[in-house]
């Protein structure tokens, strides 16, 4: 195991999510304690330019058509091999509809510990998490093995995770991604009322524009 802190960059439809920069800032705080380097992990297809302003020592970039848009199965396969091979000190994921889909599955699949809802790190590198809707904070030990963490906003500023200098980008070969069990069919713009999708037009519900047919 090395002492590097990996950050899985979250992006959707060509935009890096703000949480990615917050995580880079958090990773820098943790790397100062471990003595390692901050390494961004970018999965995508023709998405290399997303890494240009990231405050990381280097970027590991995995390019594959199956990674163009997020699907849990493709991300898990791509990351499982990378994490097992590189053995970083910690891997940070966003506590989001992308990061949460991947981190827990990898944790049980790779038999690696996971600490979730981490908001910040203490001065000596201990993750501080939030549970019970923010009513309780938990300070945990960072286990002595590669540890997965999911991060929530609140501890760092996104500006701290950005840089005017482009990091070194290292291309990493993607694993075989040809027998995926999860595939993206289509994006729709969800329209919610009272917290629930309305109607039943597609068998799913949803408010559909009768002219465009779009949700």
């Amino acid at each position, binding site marked *: 195991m090395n002492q590097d802190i990996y950050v899985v960059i979250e992006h959707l439809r060509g935009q890096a999510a703000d949480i990615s920069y917050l995580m880079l800032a958090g990773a820098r705080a943790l790397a100062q304690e471990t003595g390692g380097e901050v390494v961004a992990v970018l999965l995508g297809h023709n998405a290399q330019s997303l890494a240009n302003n990231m405050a990381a020592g280097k970027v590991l970039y995995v390019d594959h058509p199956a990674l163009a848009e997020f699907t849990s199965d493709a991300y898990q396969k791509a990351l499982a091999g990378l994490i097992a091979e590189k053995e970083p000190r910690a891997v940070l994921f966003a506590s989001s509809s992308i990061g949460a889909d991947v981190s827990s599955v990898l944790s049980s699949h790779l038999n690696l*510990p996971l600490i979730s809802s981490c908001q910040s790190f203490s001065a000596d590198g201990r993750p501080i998490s939030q*549970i019970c809707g923010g009513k309780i904070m938990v*300070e945990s030990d960072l286990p002595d093995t590669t540890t997965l963490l999911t991060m929530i906003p609140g501890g760092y500023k996104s500006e701290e995770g950005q840089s005017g200098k482009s990091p070194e980008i290292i291309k990493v070969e993607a694993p075989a991604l040809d027998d995926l069990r999860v595939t993206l*069919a289509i994006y729709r713009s*969800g329209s919610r009322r009272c917290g629930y999708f309305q109607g039943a037009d597609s068998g*799913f519900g949803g408010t559909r524009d009768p002219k465009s047919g779009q949700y």
Partner: protein
Amino acid sequence: MNIVALFKLVPDLVEELEIDQSGTALNMDFLRLIINEFDDHAIEQAILLKERSEARVSVLGLDIEGADDVLYTAASKGADQVIKLTGDFQGKSNNHAMACAVASTLKELQPDLILTGVQANTDLDGSIGPLLAGYLGMPYVGYVSGVNAVDGKVVARKEYPGGLVAEMEIKLPAVLGIQAAEQPPRYVAVTKVRQAMKTATIEERSLAEPDLSGGSTIRRMFKPEAGTRAEMIEGSADEVAARLVGIFKEIGVL
């Protein structure tokens, strides 16, 4: 299709939460536990799928005080099988240990689709659903707000921030983390639940002793410090508006 919905009991956040004397766990002595809201939606989604197809629905939960009520309520909503998992898990536990132990029972049930709540307010080491998927070698999709079963697969509506929804096709067997069922969990009259108490049978299955070694060590729990940055803006509407404009300019949004 064989559907299994799992539920977890969590602290009612309306109550005042206290930390026990060890400083590393919640004081459970007087804590009221309720069904995890997302798990309630997972059960509802399972029942909706049953109503649209020939699905068989089983609902599982740990044998904790309050579990019987949830199971009988599920039966009164239409669950075909309700199961209580018994064992020694009253003490400190973690989701990895529970998911690993529950995975063995789930294998016996041979589900096509496992539905869980996408998260719970006590999750400190990930959510049960994706952990189960990892142990069972099944695909997982979370933040789901609608599911349709079609020809050996399901199509799930996965939510992203900003109102974006992706329709994901998932081969079965699979695990889904439900954020919201397609309709709010249905209300069941107390009389119907009482009726289920007479007609439904809660099966008991013993759970293997959870292996707690995989979790991280909690150093301390504490309540967040009350913030001191709140500024109450007082005055007339014009004065408040002027102050707001000033604040927006200070932080650079105007």
